């Protein structure tokens, strides 16, 4: 098989895996405010857990650069929030506020996939690329990220197939970035901590500014806290095991 076809198939597998995160919502039927609160807490915990991993990976290349990247990520979201503020956004038939939040979340998660793609390319750059191992690792890693996206989008009344499709979309930059980063590893390595930090800053800000405050308003504080903290630990362990 020629390398381009292999990359394409790997891309397909990892991206489709993200869509698996939507599957639990085939079982969860009702979306009462309380269920929405807990879905947000789950999404927030998974995203914060992912931030732990991003920061840990980034500091191996440079802690200062990672933190600077994080601040740029926060500023980036603030600008995006401000730009989206008074626009009549149309998305999935949802009201403007919900549409704005979904667009923001998808933007954040898609941007974070760029950095993760670069990280994968760099970590295998120079060494023998074990295509199957890389593919499986990214694919499994993507499932809880799809779960986070689906938890928010399903809460906004989107269908399960739509949640799955947007989850897949958010992961497409990963394989697209992994290939050039792998080929241009000397160029990609110094940029990587900024990128990982950017992804972590953007995700953490999205969680702390949007998802958690809304979870606390709608649900019981203790339950939100339990879901968030357990989701963080689960995500950290899950990523560590891969």
């Amino acid at each position, binding site marked *: 098989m020629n390398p381009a076809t292999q990359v394409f198939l790997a891309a397909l597998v990892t991206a489709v895996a993200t869509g698996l995160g939507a599957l639990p919502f085939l079982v969860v039927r009702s979306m009462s405010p309380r269920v929405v609160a807990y879905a947000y807490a789950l999404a927030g915990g998974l995203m914060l857990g992912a931030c732990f991993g991003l*920061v840990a990976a980034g500091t191996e290349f440079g*802690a200062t650069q990672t933190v600077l990247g994080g601040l740029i990520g926060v500023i980036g979201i603030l600008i995006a929030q401000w730009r989206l503020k008074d626009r009549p956004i149309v998305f999935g038939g949802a009201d403007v506020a919900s549409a704005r939040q979904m667009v923001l979340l998808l933007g954040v998660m898609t941007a974070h996939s760029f950095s993760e793609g670069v990280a994968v390319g760099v970590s295998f750059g120079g060494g023998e690329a074990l295509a199957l191992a890389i593919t499986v690792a990214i694919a499994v890693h993507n499932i809880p990220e799809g779960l986070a996206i689906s938890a928010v989008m399903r809460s906004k009344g989107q269908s399960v197939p739509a949640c799955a499709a947007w989850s897949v979309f958010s992961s497409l930059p990963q394989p697209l970035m992994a290939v050039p980063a792998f080929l241009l590893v000397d160029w990609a390595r110094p940029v990587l901590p900024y990128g990982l930090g950017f992804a972590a*800053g953007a995700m*953490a800000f999205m969680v*702390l500014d949007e998802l958690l405050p809304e979870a606390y308003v709608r649900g019981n504080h203790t339950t939100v806290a339990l879901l968030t*903290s357990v989701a963080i*630990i689960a995500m950290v362990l899950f990523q560590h095991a891969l």
Partner: protein
Amino acid sequence: MAALGALPLQSGRAVPRRTIGWATALAAGLMIGVAYALMTVALDRGAIQSGVGALAGIAGVAAARARLHAGNAFQLGSVHAIPEGAAIGGAMAVSVPFGLMMAATLAVHNIPEGTVTIASLRPARGLGMSTLLAVVANVNQIVFGIAAFAAVQAAPALLPWLLGFSVGALLHLVFAELLPASYQAAGRTSIALVTIVAVAIVVLLHDGAS
């Protein structure tokens, strides 16, 4: 250090709610940063042990909170001091620089936490007594720090469990108490910013200490 938390309250005027919110978010961010640093260290020493320890820490704090009277700042302060002490003791066992970094971070975190505790106790107890109580609530930290250090010295295999326990307990405290309280006091965006900056400071300190 908790006594220093009384300084912003010296003027005798009521503290603006926003300031209390930001102080709480600062304490929360430092705790998340500490949890991050402890977790990176714990995972290398046993992922399963640290994971189970973390779940035990979450469960422990959840159980302790369920038994306490809501809003008793003194009791809550004491509950906080247990995982913080365990964190310092465990970190000292990992390495002296890491332990000192952890102790310094948690000491700084005690200042805004002290402000919040003292501000909530003051109407009933007066400034002097509240400050004393805020300090007493943190004495646990020393006791548990020494106990944790001694336990890990005697049985090094306990270390990932202990570090994991602190991580879970600290995170659960942040999400059950500090963050919801700070959102109510100061709105979401400023709280998110203060929290993230506090985490970033610990990430840089942790890198410097390792």
